[in-house]
């Protein structure tokens, strides 16, 4: 990847937009929104199993992935986050019977729409992680972090510059 070359020169250059350059020690912030019954429990298992993963994710607990309104994602991207990871129960395993099926539809459309208006598709990612999948959670976080590091910091539509 191009990114790796540039990193050697002490800079991260965004794969999304070459104009965005960040110092090599730049760390993205990833907003993780996890459902209580599967993914949050899974992430707890990652902890109890002492599986190590990158420290960039900040986790918000919600009862079900269906609680996630698309504007959580937009709000995150506009304020604090460089990327968003939303995780829920595997299809069919939803603690609330059908919540993740409704959520899945919304996520697909939201992801495509965000991509359409100019967010790289890797900025917003989704995963199914069950309560037993501690190692998977670590893998997912590592992948998402890696993806977003390549994209560099998110500047568009940021509200922090008052």
């Amino acid at each position, binding site marked *: 990847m191009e990114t790796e070359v540039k990193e050697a020169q002490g800079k991260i250059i965004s794969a999304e937009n070459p104009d965005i350059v960040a110092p090599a020690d730049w760390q993205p912030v990833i907003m993780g929104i996890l459902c209580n019954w599967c993914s949050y429990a899974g992430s707890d298992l990652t902890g109890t199993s002492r599986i190590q993963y990158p420290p960039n994710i900040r986790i918000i607990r919600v009862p079900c992935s269906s609680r996630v309104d698309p504007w959580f994602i937009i709000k995150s991207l506009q304020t604090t986050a460089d990327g968003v990871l939303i995780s829920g129960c595997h299809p069919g395993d939803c603690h609330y019977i059908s919540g993740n099926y409704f959520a899945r539809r919304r996520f697909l459309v939201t992801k495509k729409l965000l991509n359409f208006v100019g967010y790289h598709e890797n900025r917003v990612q989704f995963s199914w992680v069950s309560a037993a999948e501690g190692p998977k959670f670590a893998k997912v976080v590592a992948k998402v972090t890696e993806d977003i590091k390549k994209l560099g910091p998110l500047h568009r539509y940021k509200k922090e510059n*008052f």
Partner: protein
Amino acid sequence: MSVFIVETDKAGLQKFYEEIIGKFETYAPVEKFDKYDYKKVSNLSECNPDSPIETTMSLKPLFFPKTAKIMKFQEDSSGTTLSETDEDPLAGSRVILGVKHCDARGLQVLDQVYNWDYIDTDYQKRRINTVIVSTRCDKAGNQCFCTSLDYDVENSDAHDVRIVNGLDGKIYIQGVTEKGEKLIKSSSIQQPASDGAKDELSKHYKAFDASFRLKMNYTEVNAKLQKLFDSPEFETVSSNCISCNTCAFICPTCHCFKISDEKIKDTGVRYKSYDSCNNGYFTLMAGGHNPRPVKYRRWRQRSLHKFVYYKERFGMNLCVGCGHCAISCPVNISIFDVVNQVSKIMQ
């Protein structure tokens, strides 16, 4: 009022514009998404100020932006500190080209409300530092009725420089105010107009005036509307309004705004942004009382404010007859129609 006139031709006018663009921060109608709006230009090729162009938004946003920061604040454990915003109200001077006279008149009307009692300094600064170069329309647009209102379109002093494409093929550049005169004098176009220029201008105006389809008797309308507060006709004419507020946002003279705070963590900004009296929440009070809860009441406020109240208070009609609202209205309501219809009912 200055009556300094120079005459030139097409090429001369181009040169005049180019010189301005070279010297000043210049704005002109620029095309975007199939419509025109005033945007900063750095090259004459980006715009076409020769003939007046119907812009969607009026000149208003250049003086009274759709959103402006009023102040910033920062909270910490010791308390709250306020600070000025970094927004620059306009330091140097700028020139706006290709303005229609109705838009310019809009500013003149706005001056009244901004300069009574408390003076809005940001607005004031922008006004003082701007030179408005208007191009007189050759003929009326479909929705125009500026000549029917309470101001003298022919000799309007709302703009600083007027450019007229004379019927004789010459182009006249007329300095209307001192600011305008100075602008012309600083340019290289210096051929004074011939004696016939004034006649030529008035001939042009007559032709322009004759092209209007929409005419009303302003004095009569104004007088009638004053007595029509309880007219049921307001309900009829507003029935197909969808309360979308477009008219107010694009109106050159609508000046209502709201104040809102936005805060992220401990810092925040207070904004002032456009609002509209057609909005149902506009007058809704915290206790739930709303003096204008239904559509027709809001329409009544809008029409009467435009044609009666403002005149009563500030001596100018709040509608300048530009027709922007009728063009942008999704359901094609025209305020000309509305006031005409309401006032006719009385006869």
